[in-house]
């Protein structure tokens, strides 16, 4: 019974079955499946999609739809993990968002999904995020990494404003900062004092892992 429930969880991700995600997760809980194993089945499946995306076997709609499945299924499993007093492991915690003045979400969304698929806990603040909102999220969630996206030349400097804010709040040495987006390059990332830069979404994940010393 438990194996079939785990297989069903895996299938909803690989079949991009958003409609049945919550139902299948609830069924797994009602069948007393270990919630940590349930969470692993889901994250292993989305990791498979993430790996396939990097190889060119899967494409963006696959990645995004798989992430949507997890958004529906994971809260059910997480609730059960907490109820049973267990702890789920992750590679690290990431706060991510597109900076103030910029409403581009696609690149940021890709990085967010791939980070999640790689095993990070991701707190996605969305788009047009003000500097103060980034700082508040860092105080609240104490992430290992702050990831910021900017697609416009005119908003790229907002990444610097956030980094300056971190310094003022004495938070800079508490979090690694990675930046990305069309107008960003390594030179720019260095100039604003970021710790890392990713030219593509998969690069962003590699940089995040490398900054935390993960192979």
């Amino acid at each position, binding site marked *: 019974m438990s194996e079939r429930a785990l297989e069903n969880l895996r299938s909803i991700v690989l079949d991009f079955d958003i409609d049945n995600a919550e139902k299948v997760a609830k069924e797994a809980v009602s069948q007393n499946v270990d919630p940590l194993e349930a969470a692993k089945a889901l994250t292993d499946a989305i990791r498979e999609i993430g790996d396939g995306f990097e190889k060119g076997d899967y494409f963006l*709609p696959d990645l995004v739809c798989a992430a949507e499945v997890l958004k529906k299924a994971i809260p059910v499993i997480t609730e059960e993990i907490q109820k049973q007093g267990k702890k789920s492991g992750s590679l690290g915690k990431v706060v991510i968002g597109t900076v103030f003045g910029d*409403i581009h979400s696609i690149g940021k969304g890709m990085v967010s999904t791939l980070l999640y698929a790689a095993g990070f806990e991701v707190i996605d603040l969305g788009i047009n995020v003000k500097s103060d909102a980034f700082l508040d999220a860092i105080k609240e969630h104490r992430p290992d990494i702050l990831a910021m996206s900017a697609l416009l030349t*005119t908003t790229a400097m907002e990444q610097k404003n956030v980094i300056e804010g971190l310094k003022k709040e004495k938070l800079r040495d508490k979090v690694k900062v990675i930046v990305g987006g069309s*107008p960003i390059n390594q030179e720019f990332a260095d100039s604003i004092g970021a710790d890392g830069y990713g030219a593509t979404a998969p690069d962003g994940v590699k940089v995040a892992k490398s900054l935390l010393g993960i192979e």
Partner: protein
Amino acid sequence: MQKGFKRNFEPLKILTDSQVEQIHAASLNVLEEVGFKFESEKALKVLEEHGCTVDYQTMIAKIPASLTEWAISKTPSSFYLKARDPEKSLRFGGNTLYFFNSAGARYVDIDTGTVTMPTLEQNNLGVIVSDALDSVNAFPSYTPYFEIEGVPPVMSCPVSCAQRHRFSSKPSRGAQPTYSYIWETMIAQACDAQIMGCVEGAAPLSLAEDPCNAAFHYLEAGFPIYIASGSIMGGSHPITIAGASVSHNAELLAIIVFLQCIRPGSGVIANNFVTAMNMATGDLNFGTSATSLHQMAFNQIWHSYYKIPINNTGSAFSNAKIIDYQLGAEKLPLAMSSALSGANLIVLHGGVTAELAYNPILAIIDDDIANTIGRIVEGFNVNDETIGLDVIKQVGASGTFLSSRQTRNFWKTEDYMPKMFDKTGYKEWVENGRKTVIDKAKQKYEEIISTHKPLPLDDGQDKEIDKILKEAEKFYKKKGLI
């Protein structure tokens, strides 16, 4: 006034009349039932006064179909844009076709494809080259480069606008971000010119505060407005061309309603820049069939049904990193389909490496493409003189037309002879050093920058621009943006 090219045949139609009606009706439905987000209380108040149902919490205005229809009827089918040199002014609309310079964030080396930050001098030379090219009729905002070495990002639009006015007498489009419209309006007025204002939406279905403010500002100055809502099919618009046509149409119509509510009768040119998403990377797929079909459908609806002037940006860029076959193969079909389907303005010259880069040498090659397209849309005359039945009879089965008066009279106008493309014979090509189109364009570039002198501003105008830029810098410093 620049005459551009006159399309002498009916634009190509790819939709039936009932399909046009269906897209229009669906667009009205979206605006009535979903509405459009205007991130400005001032804008929402104007819309409410004109009959929209406004939710100030969500900033969404639901627009009655009757108001949208009214706004379409108030938008003129043509408008005049005054350049600082009256001979360079433009009249958009009808069957006139003009070309807009393209742009890129940075400078691309023509031989290696390496992209670097342009200096102010490289920026100025780019403007001078386009000033010299007959087929470049106007400049968009932040052209030719989005970024300039040593210029703070927030000053890039005003500085770019100032340099375009200094090094070209052709008209420009203004920009909208971070109060740039204030300084760009002042620069144009200091040169006794107009600029096309810019009000660009953010798909899906929203307009940020900056473009709302820009709309009020540019309309108060009496400038015509360029409207746009750049989008990605599969991302901010539906993946289907029909669905994306409805979303995009609704967005531009909402902006038309907003503009006509502020100042009825204002001239507007509506841009189409909707590309399909590369589902492997999330980037834009330039020069593909979906973009072309979307543009052609848009052109048919806006040119023939709404009768509002239209701009197409599909041919502005290519995913190619250097000037190669891919670049031409991505840009040309898009520009051609735009021209055939009724565009009044096509963005073409100089853009490469997606939106990342620009080179004036490519603009020189694109000048030949623009002239070829322009010549095609002008069509040909059919009359006794051009048919020349008497000449055909005279030559019969054994003579030549080369010596006829008809050939002498018409050979220059019946065809466009490209200036950069190689039309020599093989032997001559070898003897002349096997020059490529890029070699010839490089030579032309050197010739232009050493001989072309743009119409200068007078001393007073130049000093006034300096003053405006200093004022802008002070303003942004005070706001902590520099």
